[in-house]
């Protein structure tokens, strides 16, 4: 039985016509890209369900939770500490910014040469098609790259409940201090907003829930090193994307169950692709829902993605937060320590990221690395150059790609990707 969610969407103030168009487009793309894959693990049925209900059941859950007084926080970046949100008994949802929407309207506010990710956030808001944005009690923006921090000045006019968090750019003691101050301020804001006092126990519980999710994702990653690869990169991308908005506990259980199944598949040598399919690692900008362009091109061209050094991927959950600590302050420090290790390209200098990519490439025995940057994203585009030199020096194949959310360059990209696969196979 299908539930009629129209009244719910109407109440949220969505533009029903535009929203219908979005869902329809999404449905078709999902069918073509995900459901058409062969040899998918059974456990992916859960993800398919979540995706089908992304604007339905999950939104209803959020609205039901809101009725009981819980708050919903929307976020654009992995620097928003989920531990603290959970400790305030609130819900964190990642806002997807993976599709072009209302670009003409957006370009009245933002310069044309702004990265697609930023434009997309504005597009979703301007066209009123995102129930998460509309359901959020507070949206957190963070001063990372120049594009983001300047655009938040404009976004504030569209999203009055936007809360902007400052972030360090250098991994120095001063930088750590800044992050600590900002997280403390965030903790206070969360307490005020939710009316929940964040105690040691609550914070520890928040840390544990978040860590468990990260653990499950780490476990999944290790399983991908098998030959044949038990799960497609597209499916893992989806898992990484869903990790940002599904209920953390339910998500963790489902991923662990999926991992059990993958372990069996590995035993029986069942792969999503034939054995010895060329393996590619992705590195670079985050890929928010529904940005599936590059991975689907790669996997259609006869290679499999075995790792993603991205915020929607390993950069987002590689590090855990320590649970030791007897005071809120100590736990907060542990949280700061954890996030301080995220090697986003907005940091300068940022040697950890290069090291990490080289290490992943080795651990996953990838045959090559494709570096993905969104057009006009200086932090990642600039880092891609020294990264290429380093990877080439260690004898790894490396391909730099710069693109956006449009489909016009698909032919060109396909040629590059196929040629790259020809080189590595």
């Amino acid at each position, binding site marked *: 039985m299908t539930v009629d969610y129209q009244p719910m969407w109407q109440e949220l103030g969505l533009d029903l016509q535009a929203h219908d168009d979005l869902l329809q487009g999404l449905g078709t793309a999902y069918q073509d890209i995900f459901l058409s894959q062969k040899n998918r693990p059974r456990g992916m049925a859960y993800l398919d369900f979540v995706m089908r209900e992304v604007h339905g059941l999950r939104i209803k859950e959020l609205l039901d939770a809101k009725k009981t007084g819980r708050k919903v926080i929307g976020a654009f970046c992995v620097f928003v500490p989920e531990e603290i949100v959970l400790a305030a008994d609130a819900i964190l949802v990642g806002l997807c910014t993976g599709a072009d929407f209302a670009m003409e309207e957006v370009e009245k506010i933002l310069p044309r040469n702004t990265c697609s990710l930023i434009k997309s956030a504005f597009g979703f808001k301007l066209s009123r098609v995102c129930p998460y944005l509309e359901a959020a009690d507070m949206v957190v923006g963070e001063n990372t790259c120049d594009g983001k921090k300047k655009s938040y000045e404009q976004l504030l006019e569209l999203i009055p409940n936007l809360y902007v968090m400052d972030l360090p750019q250098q991994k120095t003691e001063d930088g750590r201090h800044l992050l600590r101050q900002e997280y403390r301020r965030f903790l206070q804001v969360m307490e005020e907003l939710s009316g929940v006092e964040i105690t040691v126990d609550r914070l520890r519980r928040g840390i544990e829930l978040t860590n468990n999710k990260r653990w499950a994702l780490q476990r999944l990653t290790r399983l991908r090193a098998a030959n044949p690869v038990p799960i497609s990169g597209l499916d893992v991308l989806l898992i990484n994307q869903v990790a940002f908005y599904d209920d953390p506990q339910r998500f963790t259980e489902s991923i662990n169950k999926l991992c059990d199944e993958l372990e069996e598949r590995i035993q029986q040598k069942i792969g999503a692709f034939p054995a010895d399919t060329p393996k590619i690692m992705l590195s670079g900008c985050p890929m928010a829902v529904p940005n599936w362009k590059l991975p689907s091109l790669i996997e259609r061209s006869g290679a499999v993605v075995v790792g993603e050094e991205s915020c929607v991927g390993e950069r987002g959950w590689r590090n855990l937060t320590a649970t030791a600590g007897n005071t809120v302050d100590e736990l907060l420090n542990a949280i700061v320590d954890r996030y301080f290790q995220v090697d986003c390209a907005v940091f300068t200098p940022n040697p950890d990221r290069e090291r990490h990519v080289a290490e992943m490439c080795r651990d996953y025995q990838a045959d090559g690395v494709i570096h993905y940057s969104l057009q006009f994203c200086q932090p990642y585009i600039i880092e891609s150059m020294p990264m290429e030199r380093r990877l*080439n020096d260690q004898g790894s194949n490396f391909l730099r790609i*710069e693109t956006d959310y449009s489909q*016009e*360059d698909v*032919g*060109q990209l*396909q*040629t*590059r990707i*196929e*040629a790259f696969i*020809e*080189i590595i196979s």
Partner: protein
Amino acid sequence: MRCAGIDLGSRTIEVVIVEDGQLVASRQAETGFEPVKQAENLLAGEHCDYLLATGYGRHLFETTHGADSQTVTEIKAVAAGCRALLPDVDVILDIGGQDSKVIALNPEGRVRKFEMNDRCAAGTGKFLELTAMSLGFPLDRFGQEALKARKDIQINSMCAVFAESEVTSMVGRGENRLDIAFGLHRSIANRAVSMLKRFSLSGATIGFVGGVAWNPCVCRLLEEQLKTTVLVPENPQMVGAYGAALIASEL
């Protein structure tokens, strides 16, 4: 064994037939609006054991021809063809109708790395075509004419569309059209050189293929700037199709 390579490019389609590794026939036609049909015309009456398609239309061809055809990228095809024609080449510059690329080979002749231009037509055959038209030169004489220039004019636009308007304003200023033509050629050569220089060129033998390699002015400017000879095969437009045919022979 008789094998065909077919290169479905944005401007032209080439077919090369190879028998036991020897080139036996080659044909060319404009791509037009029905590339697959054109390709079929070029192949009419040929019986081949294997057929391999390359070029931007390769997948279109593959879908319509189903199981009888496979594809290879133009990068691998050009590398194979160029190595067969010019065995010493280490780095290949390929400038076609709508894109330009540089391919670096390892000593065995396999592709080591490549660079391609972005989605615009800057620095490609399209650029020469549009600007030749706005200066009133037939495309196939553009290079020879440009070599008669007396003066070196700087053209700033890399974009084919902007270059056209730059040309118009230069004509309006009374500049000589041969000089303008030379400036346009220089701008293509500069772009190609900067793409080439992303690879280590010391001691490398450079091959130049694709439609623009017919242009003597671009060739000369490249040699001047790179301070080395640039090898151009007899028919630089056939290299991709030839390479595809050779790869087909090894299937």
